[in-house]
């Protein structure tokens, strides 16, 4: 994996888990097991989709109870916590959209949504994020 790919997967994991440490652990636990399969994929986006599916699956099965605990007050971590607080499939839609790992068609297919539903899910998630940012501004 190139460093920029690794960063994109890290961003995806960060928005999925809401926590930098959990994101790192998720990457470390998932990527090495898949590295041997790299040669089986002719197209890069297929391999990216395979990794994303594995990251989501692993997170679903091994989600740490402390995942959403407050860890840092840095802006990226606050944003990640907002995203991670969204219900599925909004959480994964936002993580896919902003990590820019897949085009919209592939992202919608991966989440089992039509392109129209993917767009509607993204719009709904944006509304919730806007509310969360507004609430944060008001609190501060």
């Amino acid at each position, binding site marked *: 994996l190139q460093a920029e790919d690794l960063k994109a997967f*890290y961003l995806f994991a960060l928005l999925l888990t809401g926590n930098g440490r959990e994101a790192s652990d998720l990457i470390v636990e998932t*990527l*090495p097991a898949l*590295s041997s399969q790299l040669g089986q994929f002719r197209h890069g986006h297929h391999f990216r989709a395979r990794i994303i599916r594995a990251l989501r699956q692993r997170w679903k099965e091994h989600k740490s109870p402390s995942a959403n605990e407050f860890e840092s007050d840095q*802006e990226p971590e606050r944003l990640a916590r907002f995203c991670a607080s969204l219900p599925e499939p909004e959480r994964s839609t936002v993580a896919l959209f902003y990590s820019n790992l897949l085009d919209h068609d592939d992202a919608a297919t991966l989440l089992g949504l039509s392109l129209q539903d993917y767009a509607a899910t*993204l719009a709904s998630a944006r509304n919730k994020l806007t509310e969360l940012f507004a609430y944060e501004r008001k609190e501060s």
Partner: protein
Amino acid sequence: MNAKKAEILLRLARPGSEKSGDRATLKAVRWAEKDERSRRLFEEQRLLDRRILDILTTVTLPETLSARVADAKAMKRHEWRRAIPSLLAVLLALAVLGGLLVFYGMQRAKNFVGKDAALEMIQTTDEMNGLELEPVSMNAGGVGDWLFLNHNLEHYDVPPAFAGLKAVGCRVFKQHGLPVAQIAIDEKKMLFFVFRASDFHVQLNPPGRWTTFEHEDWAVAIRRDGDSCFMAAFRGREDEMKKWINRAEKKRFSVANPGRSAH
């Protein structure tokens, strides 16, 4: 462009996508600019997207992440290497177990119920001087009729594979009061024994197939077809007996089915 398509494109628009030459998105943006509500929603969306992307731009990859991924990959490889001796041990154990099962199966096939009675028949030859046998000159296939006519023994037949061999002597003797037909064959100075399986409680599995074994210097082959038991013996080794039977059965098959190969 219709409103539905424009709405989808606008929602999926990444900041700057219309400037990067995405004509469909550019058309959707132009469509939105004509409608006040759509224009305002799209503007709010862009502000949010820019804010999020600006935040994400500040994210740096944890310094140790690349090294941790590399270490984890190496560990996976080592785990596999560490597992090789265990896998080999399991394979070896399976091979030994398989060998034992085959050996046990072969031993079981050689040790059938009624084997003692069969051995006793062979041992009678130790006390023979050759005069006991009534000289005959016929094919072994004709001995069944001879036994019926001379000793009233019905269905004491030689299997068709050996029917063409030359018989040189016959007799019927009693073992524990029960009849056993003995036939001397010219080839290999072989002896055939024909008897009823039920008389001597002989059980062979599966019926209709040969069981071969060695006893002292005798090579023996025995099979049961219904209640009729046929045993062939000559002085030699078990593998010689197996070869001889295969050859006799192939010969019979090629006579019965000219032009076809036996399997």
